[in-house]
């Protein structure tokens, strides 16, 4: 499968002596040491990754780890210091302003942490902004904006101003604004961190549901490990500007690369966040029997636990139509939970 987003050897160094700072960093010097010696701040340190079509790639890190800088470099909202980035076949480093603008108009969109909505524009005009910038006629862009608003559940709010909406609704507007331009790649920069926990959960569920339908390529930034587990196809754990581990949620949980990653996994309510499908094995030759317990692919592991504890049969993970996708085995689940408890 062709990667949609390719990033290799990406560096972002704030300061003047960037070459010296990169050499020090390559020799394994820490952030403080580099800052003391060169006055530079290494925000992103030699990051390499690919994101495939339809994949949700989550970058998880604490504040100051460089994740926001990373996503801004990948979208070239800020200029990276070194490195190669490619989005939908366009090499960003060489892209002229016009080419970059064209790419942004047609291929990518971003949802921001503090929504980045325009308070002077009605909700519908916010959502239609990307289309307006592209030169789409008023009626057409409004029609499209209203359609997208109804997909995110904001029917009837089109003529309000963003400030009149709750935080969760505002971020739905932010999401609708990004979806309205039908981008191939969606960047999410901690979109739910400003929301309170219950709303945040709703929004996560909604995003999962939407993604099942839309199958976009997503680069998602978060500081919330549970959120990463819930949404990700693959997770990158970021620390001090570098990726410490990249893997599926299951890999991260079962084979944490170091103590830093392990510290996160220990606090994660695994059964509540991991989807059942993340631990399933292919059905293969096994003949699925009628009476076996079943669960759906979006359900969490927790929903399968009662069956797994009471019966010695695998649980069948089905898609929305009821077709079996895979089997959930007791041993696998037990191994993950055991790792988590250690």
């Amino acid at each position: 499968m062709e990667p949609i987003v390719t990033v290799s050897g990406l560096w972002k160094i704030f300061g003047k002596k960037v070459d010296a700072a990169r050499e020090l960093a390559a020799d394994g010097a820490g952030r403080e040491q580099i800052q003391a010696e060169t006055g530079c701040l290494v925000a992103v340190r030699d990051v390499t990754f690919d994101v495939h079509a339809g994949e949700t790639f989550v970058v998880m890190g604490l504040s100051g780890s460089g994740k926001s800088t990373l996503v801004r470099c990948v979208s070239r909202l800020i200029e990276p210091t070194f490195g190669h980035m490619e989005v939908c076949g366009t090499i960003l480093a060489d892209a002229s302003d016009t080419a970059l603008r064209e790419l942004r108009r047609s291929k990518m969109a971003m949802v921001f942490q503090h929504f980045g909505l325009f308070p002077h524009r009605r909700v519908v005009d916010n959502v239609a902004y990307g289309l307006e910038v592209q030169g789409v006629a008023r009626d057409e862009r409004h029609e499209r904006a209203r359609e997208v608003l109804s997909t995110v559940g904001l029917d009837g709010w089109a003529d309000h101003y963003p400030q009149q909406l709750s935080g969760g609704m505002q971020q739905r507007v932010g999401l609708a604004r990004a979806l309205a331009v039908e981008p191939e790649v969606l960047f999410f920069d901690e979109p739910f961190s400003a929301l309170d926990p219950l709303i945040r959960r709703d929004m996560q569920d909604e995003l999962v549901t939407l993604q099942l339908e839309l199958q976009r390529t997503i680069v998602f930034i978060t500081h919330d490990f549970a959120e990463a587990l819930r949404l990700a196809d693959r997770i990158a754990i970021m620390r001090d500007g570098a990726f410490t581990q990249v893997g599926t949620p299951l890999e991260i949980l079962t084979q944490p690369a170091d103590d830093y990653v392990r510290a996160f996994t220990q606090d994660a309510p695994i059964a509540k966040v991991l989807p059942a499908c993340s631990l399933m094995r292919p059905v293969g030759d096994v003949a699925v029997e009628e009476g076996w317990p079943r669960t759906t692919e979006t359900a969490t592991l927790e929903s399968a636990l009662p069956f797994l504890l009471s019966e010695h049969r695998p649980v069948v993970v089905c898609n929305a139509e009821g077709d079996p996708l895979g089997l959930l085995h007791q041993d696998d689940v037990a191994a993950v939970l055991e790792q988590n408890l250690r």
Partner: protein
Amino acid sequence: MSQTVAAEPGAGADAPAARRRSPFAVGLAAAAVALVIVGFVASVGAFPESWNFGLADPIDRTRRWLINNQTSHWLYTVLLNPLTDLADAGIRRLEAILRWFPWYVYPVFCGLGLWRVRGRLAGALGFCGVVLIGMTDLWQQGFATLALMGVAVFLSLLAGIPLGIAAWRNDRFAGVLRPTLDAMQTMPGFVYLIPFVLLFGIGRVPALIATVIFALPPVVRLTDVGLRNVPGSMVEASEMFGATDRQTLRLVRIPAARPAILAGTNQTTMLAMSMVVIAAFIGSGGLGQDVLRAMRDIDVGEASEAGIAIVIMAIILDRFTRGIATLGERGRGQGTAAHAGDSLRAADTVTIRWIAAATALVALVGGIVSHNKFPEWLQWHYAPYINDITAWARDNLYDIGSSGIGTGPLSDFITVYMVTPLRELLSSGIPWPAMIGLGVLGGLLARGVTLGLGIGIALFLIGWLGMWELSMDTLAQTLVAVAVTLAIAVPLGIQASHSDRFQKLIDPVLDFLQTIPSFVLLVPVITLFHVGRIPGIIASVVYALPAAVHYTDLGLRRVPAEVHEAATSFGATRWQRLRRVELPLAAPELMVAVNQVIMLVLAMVVIAGLVGGGGLGLETVNALRRSDAVGRGFEAGIAIVLLAGILDRLTRGVADRLRPPPAA
């Protein structure tokens, strides 16, 4: 995260202390002390008149040359005269349009408009106010003022908004522009008139140009600030959708900065209003001219009618421009009361359409049948009553029952015990070299070498221009007025900061006082205090009071509630809390208040030259009245600018000193 750039260790930490120790500063301080000692030992008194640099003569010569060449020289035939004609035609055109409408459009429009932006009472008052202007037969003059102002505001915005955008776009340009705007705002409006009189003679065009320049700073500044304060997240979002810079500016930045730009427009309008009135001195015509003429004749009644018409116009313009600025905000609403907000908007749109349609209909019908003169049968003058009151006040309030209480003894007291001794101390008591030495020391202590040196040079220049004694006279009046203002304003501000109810009570009064153009304030004051130095000082106090109360209140309110509670929890009395916690914490803000008061007072003291205030003001007034005095007036104008600059920098330096060090 991109903002987490490391703070340079040691940067900004106690730089002033380091500067104070530089050999340069020590040398300058020693020289200043030497000047003070020498001055007193030699007891030289005021700046020697024989040293006069004599700028007046060359200026007068230039003036004569300009007058002689007004019809022949290319500077006039090619550049200035066409410009004059164009500007004059613009004003005339606007005036003709304003006059075309039937008279009743104005009260109806103002009434409905104010009802819409400020409520029913404001609407009713607006309606009555406009009718009152017509009743006192000031309709035509009102149009003249309005037309001049309209053109001036239009030109200020036309130049100011692009300048603001340029300043936002280009930091280097902003670096040049901002100090220029600062300097422009420290100059009393009056002074602006002199160079344009020199160049254009008297008339509406120099008045227009002076007004445009005087009114320019707020809209430039607030456009710049507004654009700079547009949240980065909004700009980033716009860029992320592939907007070009121009699209981001047009669709996001300017609309987001709209409230700031409109606030700037409001301030610019008010400055233009006050300047157009003052510009009556150079023949701008209109209502200002009526006030001026009546004041020269000491006809308080006539002056009041014109003055009140000006105040009515000023208030209506202020409320309108402010109303427009807040209109959009109200419609958008805050929080989640979405449906309420929506119905409000819908109602707004309906009333706006309704008002527009009604006004248009009335205007059209009335215009066609040319009802454009205010009907004579509605005329009614109240000037005689005002004159009666004035006469009564003079007879009865000047010295109430010969008891030594009244406005007369009060003004005598201020003159004898405050102004005269201070003036004598400044102009002859302290020898001029000592005065310069003290100025240098003040500058050194307040900011550093540059300011000390600057003050020294500025003071010397004042002497060199032959303006030493007049400047000291003006300085003495300014200092007395500042002291009186602060003595009244600070307690009021403290009270306002402690009691919301008191604040609500005085707010409208202060708001009203602040809307009155400076020149008009002199009218009621001369009713009570005759002419001389005192009415100028009293008018200055009234003029500067609102700003002083406002800044004191603001400064004290900024003291965080936790600090209050902490002080109280240690058992501090209210007085202890005020003296040991609130006032020190609010000190920088209070110093800003002092700065504002000084600037406002100085502007007023200069205008008070008209009513016998003497000092530099009288020279400038003379320059505008008699063409042979332009040279002297020019010198006085420069002295005023220098004085304003010294006082402004000094107080701002002190304010900065008082600010707590920035967080590490």
